[in-house]
């Protein structure tokens, strides 16, 4: 009997150990992602005035578009915070609900971004028009790709929550995905400032 007891204790310890590990690893992954974005930002800074006679940011960027996008993403970050609160309270349905709202807002963000891109392309501002546009599409597109991956990930987690409820594993997954989501939000703030606001100035 004592054997069995110490065994379960062990099990518990190992799980805690594990949670701790994944969070640290995820932070390190975020560090590398910061460097990834930093590098693309740096190339954008170098090329941001290389219009080669093509359209400039001032001509292309339309305030309603990027302001809506910002609004959607910031709100989604807030709702993902609410999801974490529900997680802490142990309320599965509430948690799933907020995640759904977060994902929908994220989807809206992607929708606006895609239509913004499509508009630009239809005006002849394609990725191969100038170095500035190459850098623009790459930087904003990389962020968009991150958001899309986040959406897929979030969906998978929602299915698991539905099936298995809240347990150590799903708790960890929700924590990580919301960390990721906030991170994308911060990156967007930089994008907004450096690409859009400085671009139209």
């Amino acid at each position: 009997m004592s054997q069995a007891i110490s065994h379960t204790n062990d099990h518990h310890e190992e799980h805690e150990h594990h949670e701790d590990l994944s969070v640290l690893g995820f932070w390190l992954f975020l560090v590398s992602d910061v460097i990834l974005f930093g590098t693309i930002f740096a190339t954008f800074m170098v090329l941001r005035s290389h219009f080669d006679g093509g359209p400039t940011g001032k001509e292309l960027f339309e305030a309603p578009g990027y302001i809506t996008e910002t609004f959607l993403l910031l709100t989604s970050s807030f709702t993902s915070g609410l999801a974490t609160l529900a997680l802490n309270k142990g309320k599965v349905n509430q948690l799933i609900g907020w995640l759904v709202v977060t994902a929908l807002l994220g989807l809206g963000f992607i929708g606006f971004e895609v239509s913004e891109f499509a508009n630009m392309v239809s005006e002849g501002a394609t990725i191969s028009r100038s170095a500035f546009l190459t850098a623009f599409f790459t930087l904003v597109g990389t962020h968009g790709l991150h958001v899309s991956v986040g959406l897929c990930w979030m969906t998978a987690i929602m299915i698991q929550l539905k099936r298995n409820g809240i347990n150590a594993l799903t708790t960890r997954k929700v924590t990580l995905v919301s960390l990721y989501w906030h991170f994308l939000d911060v990156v967007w703030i930089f994008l907004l400032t450096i690409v859009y606001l400085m671009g139209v100035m």
Partner: protein
Amino acid sequence: MIDKIKDFASHFFVTGDPLIYGADVSIGLSMVAIFFVLTYFKKWGWLWREWLTTVDHKKIGIMYIIASLLMLFRGGVDALLMRAQLALPNVHFLQSEHYNEIFTTHGTIMILFMAMPMMFGLFNIAVPLQIGARDVAYPFLNAFSFWMFFVGAMLFNLSFVIGGSPDAGWLAYPPLSELSGSPGVGENFYIWGIQLSGVGSLASGINFVVTILKMRAKGMKMMQMPLFTWSVFASCVTIIIAFPVLTVTLALLFIDRFAGGHFFTMLHGGNPMMYVNLIWMWGHPEVYIVVLPAFGVFSEVVSVFSKKRIFGYKSMVFSLMIISILSYFTWVHHFFTMGASANVNAFFAITTMAIAIPTGVKVFNWLFTMFRGRIRIEQPMLWTLGFIPTFLIGGATGVMLAVAPADYQYHNSYFLIAHFHQVLIGGVVFGYLAGIYYWWPKMFGFKLNVKLGLWAFWLWNIGFYVCFMPQYALGFMGMTRRVYTYGWDMGWGPLNLISSIGAVLMGIGFIFQVWQILYSIKYGERDTTGDPWDGHTLEWTIPSPAPEYNFAIEPIVKGQDDFWRMKKEGIVPMTKESEIKPIHMPRNSGIPFIMSWFWFIAGFGFTFGWTWMIVVGLLGVAGSMLARSFTKKLDYYIPVEEIKETEAKFGRLV
């Protein structure tokens, strides 16, 4: 229809060259042979269960090392082909395009597919054991890293027979590597081969940092870790910071080639020099990523084989960290001649020379450790001793290259070639070989034959000097790198001939090592003690080869070089039966293997621009991730009985 297929095939398969037909035939034959042997001996199930799906760090380490030795062979054949071409003036054994392809694949393979995996192999073998852990932090991710490296290397190597090899140098400078300069698929193979394996490297970097921070045995403080583990830590921190830059750089180049972008083109505002800056921001730290673990190996070996504590442990740790930080501030020394201002060049010249200081500290510490030590010249020590003079010369010529104004003379000459091979072979390759000899008994339970090892050592060493010393002189005589042939009037003939003879000697040295391994598998001396070298650190407290759970009972550490302390206090590492508890282990999984091959499919699709194939590959990747995400049984327990049995078999049970 037939004509269409013929036409496609003649573009798809590289044809018209006897070397390539030879490669086709040998690839075909070895595939058939492997298939036949596995089927005949009914080994498919074994291969799948024991190796392809394994998450055991020791087995992953072994696979890394096998793959890297194969790549050393491929890169070595490239080297010999080049040296054959250059041995005499006016040789036309290789065409100029072919020569370009070969120096490109040689450089890329040696650094990314030979040095990196050999390094990860040693990490996997030694780090968990040295810190008293049962595994790395993320065993599943670890397997994924290995398979990503593997498929990346396969993709890159495939370019030789399908579609054509890259030929824009190992760093693929634009505009040469742009679509305008390299319209074929070669550069795409380069980009995707490296990109896939780079993902694996980054994941390994994260994995080992977390492992070292979080998985150390109870009682082991950071400042008590073995120096190899410290060097791994320094190297992995550098990986986490440097590899994303590489990923981005190659992605941008690909966007230029694939989507008509203008990051680095000469037209529409692109800036090729930006690429050169970016790639060296990764490239210079990269050389420290590969050399720091070699320093770690030397530190272990020198202290064990001198029967002394390492001299200046703290200064060894600090110098490792300082080197990894300084390595970020030197990248411009690769293009002093680009026309930056004198101040910029001066800054980077000084930072470059500054690295010589912590490196010098290390060399002196090794020498002081040996001083008055009881030195035993076993094979790992032999390679360490061989390393010191080569590295001193390599370091000195490096400082010469760091003098910006003087670099205008040496830039891209054979002097440079001699310098970096001196540090890469003398430092990195010798270091890893020392590490493989050192941990070999721990991996396989037997020692490698000494006599054959001596032959290999002397052939490599003598061959090395014969090959590269003449190249310093050739550099001063005006021979530049990447020339595929030269005339009699240049006067470079004799020295080149000598150099090629040296290369052949190293090649024979490698053959001796293969022979040594094969011979020792059959006749090698068994290591029954688990501690063949009278080691200082925890990996030597357990049997060889290590059982899958490493430590039957997790060790509790009291200080640095804990095993040495135990020996002094007369403690013999034994497993107390009463203390054994069930051990929690990660379950094997086929997902890393399958997912990586889907990445391969996607990478191949990207290389050829075949959308359907990209879609298939990426869907497969997503499917594998989902499958993983929904897997429930991730772990299992090894029951007490089984542990007792294993430990009893090794004679460890009390």
